């Protein structure tokens, strides 16, 4: 391992990525896999919009439409948005706190592969009898009624990928608590790191209820239990509670990192310190906390009674306050600044009005009595797409442009980036703004077609046209990525010129050990402070010494693969097939066997020696 810059063939590169435990490479894996699922989910969205373009359309059948709408939601939330957010957390957070890796590099890899195999398993349903068709919320009575194996794939696939996400959450928490560089106090952490921290805490406490809910669903569908069967004493409302106790924090799991990315962007491209940093931190923590108190606002029409509805309505409105604080802090970060309109900044600027729209409709649906009208209509569809597309997807696109040079050492083309931005922005508002009206005019969500003479025709057509703008935008972005990768013009440490945090003080991409010497942090925006003092880089906090690094390992892939196999066994048991139990057992044997192997085989990692690091001086940036 002494030669840090090696040329490798395709096979070796593949093996490298299959066995890597390096947070930067895992970030790239998350980016690729999440990006792939984003395209799949986008394709599903296009099917939905084409089907709804005109009344009584028969582009797809009713049953297939339900599969598509279910998979669109499930894919976008679990397999696209979360992994893409995880990609940036992995790529950037350890660099921002001046760490050489995350706390548990092995677990980090395991988390990715669990997510990946879970996602693949879920999508296998398309080829094995039919995808899940009960919506991404998979309400229990409909899910139990569903005739195909789709729901089985949903429950098992999410169980596997959810386990991976939970591991990721714990990993990030420990990393941030234990591995900050000297001087990096909590109140000097960059906003993106703070949002990663709070998000990880949300993951830790929100995913177990989903785990339990999915287990109950698996047991009911495949092993004959009666949790949701009213005739045997079961109760389907339990599923609704468990799902939303997870589901609402999940929304914040997605949006908080988006807030973090935008906080970085506003500061960088306004050349100004984040306005009201401490209140931003406070607001983030408060949003995370309140996020657990409001789940029942998804169930206003379930019939929980006026007391529960009133309490949850008021609690939900309360979240508007910290969110508002954030919006104004961002605006005042730009106020008095020196703004450049780079692609990431364009997304950030467009994010403010778009997200405010989503936020205010959020307050409107929080008003329980009025929500009886909004609930399960296109108004809600418009609301959450304004929040998730206008917030999370904008942030992911912005983050892709912002961090691309840090992850790959080359800049995405700004001209194409701006074309993507404008097409996407126009398409987004065209698609979803009109849906607010469709909702209040009486169009329920999740309908596979609509009848004429209800006044829905024009608006649905407008919405569909908007979707095509977004599709073209994504295609332009793909072209951008390919062109950029072919050109491959290398960039230096701080390609945007105004980097403020530690990740911009090291080469792009960073060497695999990140920091040759851990940096000394003297305040918020550590790198900016040094730059303003006329220094070229960070002051080291330690003398040059040996660096301890973890070994690569193929075991994470094997553990995840074992569960993938076991899940097929579980589906077989549900179908009363003879192969069910043996396959389940084989799968578990693979998983537990490889865990056992990992447990008994000592793994002390290895050391990079001081001498090698010194030799590495001139080529460190190209590792």
């Amino acid at each position, binding site marked *: 391992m002494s030669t840090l810059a090696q040329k490798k063939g395709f096979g070796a590169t593949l093996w490298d990525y299959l066995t890597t435990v390096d947070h930067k490479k895992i970030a790239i894996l998350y980016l690729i896999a999440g990006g792939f699922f984003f395209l799949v989910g986008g394709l599903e969205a296009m099917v939905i919009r084409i089907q709804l373009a005109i009344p009584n359309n028969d582009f797809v059948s009713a049953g297939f439409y339900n599969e598509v709408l279910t998979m669109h939601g499930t894919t976008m939330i679990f397999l696209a948005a979360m992994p893409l957010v995880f990609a940036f957390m992995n790529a950037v957070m350890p660099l921002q706190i001046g760490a050489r890796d995350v706390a548990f590099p092995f677990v980090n890899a395991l988390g990715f592969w669990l997510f990946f195999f879970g996602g693949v398993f879920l999508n296998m349903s398309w080829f094995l009898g039919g995808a899940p068709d009960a919506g991404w919320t998979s309400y229990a009575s409909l899910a139990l009624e569903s005739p195909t194996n789709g729901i089985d794939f949903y429950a098992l696939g999410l169980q596997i990928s959810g386990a991976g996400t939970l591991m990721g959450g714990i990993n990030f928490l420990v990393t941030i608590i234990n591995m900050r560089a000297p001087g990096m106090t909590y109140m000097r952490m960059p906003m993106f790191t703070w949002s990663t921290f709070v998000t990880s805490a949300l993951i830790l406490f929100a995913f177990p209820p989903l785990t339990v809910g999915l287990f109950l669903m698996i047991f009911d569908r495949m092993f004959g239990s009666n949790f949701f069967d009213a005739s045997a004493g079961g109760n389907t409302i339990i599923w609704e509670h468990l799902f939303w106790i997870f589901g609402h924090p999940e929304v914040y799991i997605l949006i908080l990192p988006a807030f973090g990315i935008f906080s970085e962007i506003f500061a960088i491209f306004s050349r100004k310190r984040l306005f009201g940093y401490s209140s931003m931190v406070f607001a983030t923590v408060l949003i995370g906390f309140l996020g657990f108190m409001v789940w029942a606002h998804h169930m206003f029409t379930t019939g929980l009674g006026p007391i529960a509805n009133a309490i949850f309505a008021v609690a939900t409105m309360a979240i508007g306050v910290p969110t*508002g604080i954030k919006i104004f802090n961002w605006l005042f970060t730009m106020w008095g600044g020196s703004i450049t309109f780079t692609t990431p900044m364009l997304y950030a600027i467009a994010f403010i009005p778009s997200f405010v729209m989503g936020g205010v409709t959020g307050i409107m649906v929080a008003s329980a009595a009025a929500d009886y009208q909004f609930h*399960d209509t296109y108004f809600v569809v418009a609301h959450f797409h304004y929040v998730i597309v206008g917030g999370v997807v904008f942030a992911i696109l912005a983050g892709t442009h912002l961090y691309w040079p840090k992850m790959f050492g080359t800049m995405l083309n700004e001209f194409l980036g701006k074309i993507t931005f404008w097409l996407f922005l126009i398409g987004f508002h065209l698609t979803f703004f009109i849906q607010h009206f469709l909702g209040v005019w009486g169009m*329920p*969500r999740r309908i*596979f077609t609509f009848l004429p*003479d209800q006044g829905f025709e024009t608006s649905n057509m407008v919405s569909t046209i908007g979707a095509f703008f977004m599709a073209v935008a994504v295609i332009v972005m793909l072209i951008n990525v390919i062109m950029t990768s072919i050109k491959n013009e290398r960039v230096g440490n701080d390609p945007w010129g105004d980097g403020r945090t530690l990740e911009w003080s090291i080469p792009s991409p960073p060497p695999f050990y990140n920091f040759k010497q851990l940096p000394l942090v003297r305040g918020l925006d550590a790198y900016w402070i040094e730059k303003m003092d006329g220094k070229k880089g960070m002051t080291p906090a330690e003398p040059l010494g040996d660096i301890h690094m973890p070994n690569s390992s193929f075991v994470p892939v094997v553990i995840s693969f074992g569960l993938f196999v076991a899940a097929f066994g579980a589906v077989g048991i549900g179908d009363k097939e003879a192969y069910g139990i043996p396959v389940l057992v084989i799968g578990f044997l693979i998983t537990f066997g490889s865990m056992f192997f990992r447990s008994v085989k000592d793994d002390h990692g290895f050391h990079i020696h001081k001498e090698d690091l010194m030799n590495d001086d001139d080529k460190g940036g190209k590792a």
Partner: protein
Amino acid sequence: MKRLMNWRLYSLLIMLTLILAGCGKPYLSTLTPAGEVAQIQYDLMKLSTLIMVGVIAVVTIIFVIVVMKFRRKDDRIPKQVEGSHTLEIIWTTIPILLLLILAIPTVAATFKLADVSEMDQVNEDGKRDALVVNVRANLYWWEFEYPDLGIITGQELVVPTDQKVYFNLKASDVKHSFWIPAVGGKLDTNTDNINKFWLKFDSDKSEEAGGLFYGKCAELCGPSHAFMDFKVKAVSKDEFKQWSTAMQNADEQQPTTDLAQAGQDIFNKSCIGCHAVTPIDGRPEAARTAPNLATFGERSRIAGILEHSEKDLKNWLANPETYKPGNKMTGTYNELKPEQLDALTEYLMSLKVME
């Protein structure tokens, strides 16, 4: 940035066109409230929209100033401001006040809409004065039972105007949701419990809407979720009285033509196991597996969605799967020959109680 401005103008224009285009259909839209419940909800929607437009306006003003004024002109480094306590207090306090303005009527309305105490009150005769309807949602059809009147209808709910109508809601297979947008918000029909609420149908507004409101299922329930519509006839109290009396006294209707007679024979062989043809149906719920057809000839739609014509009825009977995928009627009877279709149609269209 000029383009951003242009685009904002554009969206404003689109918005205006929409608003000019009206508030949707009076028999369907929540923006044309036709009863007390919808009115309360509409008022809340207006109040919240008003507050929110105010918030958007403030944000937009600051936003526009920032984006216009603070573009990078030179290479100077701006002053690094930490924050401002005054500003932070302002934008924490004002939203709290705004939310309180919205929260108080929200809570009041939430309790008001859930007040069904009248359902349990009885007068000196031991009967209740309130009109109660038991709604049972099934895969793609609705049953409306009037327990105090002893009558049942399918697919079309008939209610008196200008008085509170109370509903007991439940589902017999999977979860659905009962929604008459123009008259009031929805409430789920669960498989585990009975939900209760009330609605009120305004007579003037009902007239504007043509006396017939659209009702919908608002919870994904399977392939034909989109087609799980029902219709609501809102009639005056007197008319409702006439109707309910006619329903209570309706005997089994005898066919008047030979063709209808032939239709009845087919019906009694293939359909009667599930469908009842009298408004009084003593069978338990579990046995009532298909809509009651006693008033079929008087309905406004076939299967809740198709035009009420002989042609559409024949199409529906010949191939229900085309019109409602996944429905429970498909495959329960043998293929019908054209003459059988004619006979059945004649018979079904003759089923009326009001003459």
